[in-house]
């Protein structure tokens, strides 16, 4: 499948490399079987109103930056509208693909420090934050045994290309614990090849649990209820466990207004998605067509 994507014949060698690497892959690189846990979540339980089933609401996972900041101090309908229009304009120029925290990406930017050159960085997305044109994401990789993180702005016009190398999710929303994990969990080759998921399949969830290095840590991971860490208890002392118990806030999940102030209500969201849904859908379809064309035309150019 990846062979079809080739552009130059030299890269046949790379493809062979990829196939070999596939056999002896790192633990973290193993894509898990697509879990159907999401499907269960989406199933409407009894008594749910049909407006919850609005399919456009699912776009909030794919394009979270289209939702504005819920803080009413910063909200203004006209500004949000203009901002969304600008975002769509930028999206029409560069393909910003669907990706999540845990997805492995390759970002190519025009390098202002070396004129006429581009700079490519491959890494796992450990964070997505900000909304509107300020949306940012952070990539992490270990190159030459040196952990490196780079923060990018999603709508920065110097970005030439964003390529998804492996589309998957992880168990947590933020993967900052990879900084304290063993380096093999976030080591990805720079010349990694894209893995293409079959059409229409759900985004797989990588259930790998990383191993942390012994303390000292950068943060108190034990207090954060992380699912993607396996050996956190090994490094804890009795003192830490006690402190963790003390710091727990079990009432917080019942604080209904706290949740409310952090989210955009359904009514507002349907309005927003109704505005951008058609254009986003069109862009998706045209991109798909383009990529299909490329797959057919690319080998011909090689021959000629």
């Amino acid at each position, binding site marked *: 499948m990846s062979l079809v994507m080739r552009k130059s014949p030299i890269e046949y060698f790379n493809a062979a490399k990829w196939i070999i690497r596939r056999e002896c892959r790192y633990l973290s690189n193993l894509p898990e079987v697509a879990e159907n846990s999401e499907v269960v979540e989406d199933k409407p339980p009894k008594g749910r109103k049909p407006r919850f089933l609005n399919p456009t609401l699912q776009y909030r996972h794919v394009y979270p930056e289209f939702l504005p900041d819920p803080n009413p101090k910063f909200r203004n309908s006209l500004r949000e509208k203009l901002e969304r229009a600008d975002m769509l304009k930028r999206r029409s120029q560069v393909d910003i693909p669907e990706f999540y925290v845990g997805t492995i990406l390759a970002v190519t930017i025009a390098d202002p420090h070396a004129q006429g050159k581009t700079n490519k960085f491959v890494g796992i997305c450990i964070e997505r934050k900000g909304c509107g044109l300020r949306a940012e994401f952070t990539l992490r990789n270990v190159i030459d045994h*040196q952990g490196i993180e*780079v923060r990018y702005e999603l709508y920065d016009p110097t970005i030439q290309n964003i390529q998804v190398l492996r589309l998957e999710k992880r168990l947590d929303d933020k993967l900052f614990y990879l900084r304290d994990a063993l380096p093999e969990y976030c080591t990805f080759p720079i010349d990694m090849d894209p893995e293409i998921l079959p059409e229409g399949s759900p985004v797989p969830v990588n259930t790998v649990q990383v191993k942390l290095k012994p303390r000292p840590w950068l943060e108190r991971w034990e207090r954060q209820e992380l699912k993607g860490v396996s050996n956190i208890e090994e490094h804890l002392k009795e003192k830490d466990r006690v402190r963790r118990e003390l710091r727990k806030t079990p009432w917080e999940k019942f604080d209904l207004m706290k949740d409310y102030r952090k989210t955009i209500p359904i009514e507002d969201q349907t309005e927003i998605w109704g505005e951008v849904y058609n254009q986003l859908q069109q862009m998706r379809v045209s991109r798909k067509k383009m990529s299909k064309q490329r797959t057919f035309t690319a080998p011909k150019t090689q021959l000629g």
Partner: protein
Amino acid sequence: MLRNLLNRFKSVPSCGFHTSPCLNEVQLLTRLRVVDNSEIGKRAMAEGKPPKIICVYNKKRIGYIGDRVMVAIKGQKKKGILVGLKQTQNVKVPKFDSNNVVLIDDNGTPLGTRIHVPIPTILRTILKEKTHAKGADYTKLLSIATRFV
């Protein structure tokens, strides 16, 4: 046991310490990692005695990327250039897991012949700006770099 401890702690009101993350600033007496293959740097790192900063050559006395520093390494004074920081960086500037330094002499010539970790490309601009016609030429450092990110 745990419950006893819990009860004991619960009676004491928690003290309001700040738990904000540290800034990871490079300042006086910060330990650095030498990333070139100079003899002195290799030996210092191998012995587990990484160099300490004894002076940062800028007005703020806090080292930022591309700044010149003086380090104490194996009982000697050497100059170096910061080529990677732990501190939170600007957009598109890489943040490293360690504070990296490349040792140079007074003319800006690196002591080693190879840098074995990636170097941020922003250094190309920063070092060019720092280099003056008659002063030290820091851009020699860029020529021994193996990889830019």
